């Protein structure tokens, strides 16, 4: 793994617990200068705690936080020079939108002369389209407007890094999509190191220069969207991205190096010339084979020679707009795939179908262990 000489944000072995609950369990994270880094994970994985640890609002039990290579242990939040947008927005309810935006510019640390501050607030408000709302108390703003005020309070002053905690999660779908596009277009966000927390994989893929996946207080994998998508570290990462979810079928490795489904209904060769080489896996090892719904197609010809064929029958079809999600039964397993709507036109439950998949889009994982820990990927 390549690390920048001095990461803008660097966390090393962070441990944090609340009573008996372990929030962060030896978390390591590096965010490069100017990078937009998305931290993705389910709720309770430690995302917000990570942000607050960087900001100095939470003190880790062990581990170090460095900003631009400087150890931040014992440095107060107001001296760290980071700006944070809280998931709850944390706007000052007794003040107007203007006063909320101007708050950093009136503080001892970022103080600007009143006229300059007014100009700066006006510019940020116009950028976010809330110029007309400045005099209103924040209690009378809609959720979307409050979110913009919260974001504005982050953008209004210079910061070493932006920490954004699910800033879009409470907006309705349409607004969220619009804001997602706008967010990256904002110059300040483009230039400033940003650590962005989300539980929405689409958001992470759309925004992140790099993505980190967090689970139970540890980073499982960091990488570009391509790395995360094509080389997921384990089944947890694979499952975190893509809707419908990746198909994971349990089975074993046979003596001649093929995959045999758990109910011995079908076999997939793993050693074809086109398939990625498999790390030495002993025959009989319990594994899972992963294939993304959009990598599967109906019928044979499209994918050309070398494609793997599977035969099953239609279980259910679901129209998703232009595409259709088809769930196919392969013995005891269900496999979902997404095909153009026209291709799925004649399909009824129990229609026999032939599925094809390029061998290189198959992912092989170890079986999830007895405690439910996700299996690691074993294809290179």
């Amino acid at each position, binding site marked *: 793994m390549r690390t920048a000489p001095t990461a803008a944000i660097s966390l090393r072995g962070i441990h944090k617990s609340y009573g008996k609950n372990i929030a962060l369990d030896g978390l390591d994270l590096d965010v490069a200068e100017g990078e937009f880094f998305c931290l993705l994970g389910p709720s309770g994985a430690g995302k917000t705690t990570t942000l607050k640890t960087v900001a100095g609002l939470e003190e880790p039990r062990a581990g170090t936080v460095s900003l631009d290579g400087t150890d931040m242990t014992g440095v*107060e939040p107001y001296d760290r020079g980071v700006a944070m947008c809280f998931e709850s927005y944390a706007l*000052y309810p007794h003040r107007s939108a203007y006063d909320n935006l101007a708050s950093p510019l009136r503080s001892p640390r970022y103080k600007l002369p009143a006229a300059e501050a007014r100009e700066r607030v006006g510019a940020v408000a116009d950028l976010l389209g809330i110029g007309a709302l400045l005099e209103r108390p924040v209690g009378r703003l809609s959720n979307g407007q409050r979110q913009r005020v919260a974001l504005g309070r982050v953008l209004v002053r210079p910061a070493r890094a932006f920490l954004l905690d699910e800033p879009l999660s409470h907006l309705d779908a349409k607004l969220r999509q619009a804001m997602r596009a706008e967010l990256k277009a904002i110059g300040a966000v483009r230039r400033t190191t940003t650590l962005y927390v989300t539980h929405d994989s689409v958001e992470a893929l759309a925004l992140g220069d790099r993505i980190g996946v967090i689970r139970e207080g540890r980073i499982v994998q960091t990488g570009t969207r391509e790395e995360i998508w094509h080389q997921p570290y384990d089944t947890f990462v694979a499952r975190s991205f893509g809707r419908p979810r990746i198909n994971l079928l349990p089975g074993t490795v046979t003596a001649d190096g093929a995959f045999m489904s758990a109910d011995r209904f079908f076999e997939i060769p793993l050693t074809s010339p086109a398939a990625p080489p498999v790390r030495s896996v002993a025959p009989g090892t319990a594994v899972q084979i992963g294939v993304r719904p959009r990598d599967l197609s109906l019928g044979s010809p499209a994918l050309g020679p070398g494609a793997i064929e599977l035969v099953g029958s239609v279980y259910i079809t679901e129209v998703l707009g232009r595409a259709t999600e088809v769930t196919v039964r392969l013995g005891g397993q269900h496999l979902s795939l997404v095909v153009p709507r026209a291709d799925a036109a004649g399909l009824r439950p129990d229609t026999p179908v032939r599925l094809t998949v390029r061998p290189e889009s198959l992912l092989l994982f170890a079986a999830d262990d007895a405690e439910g820990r996700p299996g690691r990927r074993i294809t290179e």
Partner: protein
Amino acid sequence: MKRGVRGKLIAVAADGALILYFVFALFPIAWMIILSLKPANELFSTYFSFTPTLDSYQTVLGAGSDEGVPFLRFFVNSLVVSLGAVGLSLVIGLPAAYAAARWRFRGSENLMFTLLSFRFAPELTVIIPLFVLYQQLGLFDTYLGMIWVLQLVTLPLIVWIMRSYFSDLSPELEQAALLDGYTRKQAFFKVALPLVKPGIAAVSLLAFIFAWNNFVFPLILTSSEAQTVTVGALSFLGGDRPKYNLTAAAALVSVIPPLLLALTIQRYLVRGLSFGAVKS
């Protein structure tokens, strides 16, 4: 239909019960007003027909020209002592309540419980040693002594109630202030404190009433200099014959400050806390 009639009956019965309760609750006050308006010579008659007179009020407010009871002085004493006690409790209690709400430190719960125990221990249990202490320290019959001892009444109240107000406040508001570049002290004064204003108003009023109404401490720990209205009103009962009319007038006059205070801060009492602060 049947239910309608029954519902009406229940409503009437409820109204009747309420009226009965009001009569019961307000009767002493009505009786006091009547007493205070009676001329001294008709004091012990039980007729309701008498010529109302403001003589009692004149005597009470006339600084005891005739009775030798400096009631106005007691009144001022009460104001100084009660306001002083509430003020001191706010200065000490608000930061304490904030700390107790935000941080759990070693012994914090024990400390809070100890504070609360001042409220449920009867004042009489500590009054004798306090009397001796006050005599020796020169705090007996002084404003400082009274304000100090009233902390037993006002401080626990303010700390406990304000703690719950601060707990209801999202800590993220102060965290946002820290990241905006404010120090912890500024975050407290600029963000947390303004948001609990309604709470401060309510608890100050409550504490003021408790301090104002306190009887045992001024009874034992003051004699003339720092005596308050609660004890002072009783002075009219001494002497050759009890002057209930004067005591009643004094008591009614001493209701005025808490009443005025309650009316002025009424709007704070009903206003909700931090509406729209944090969506949840």
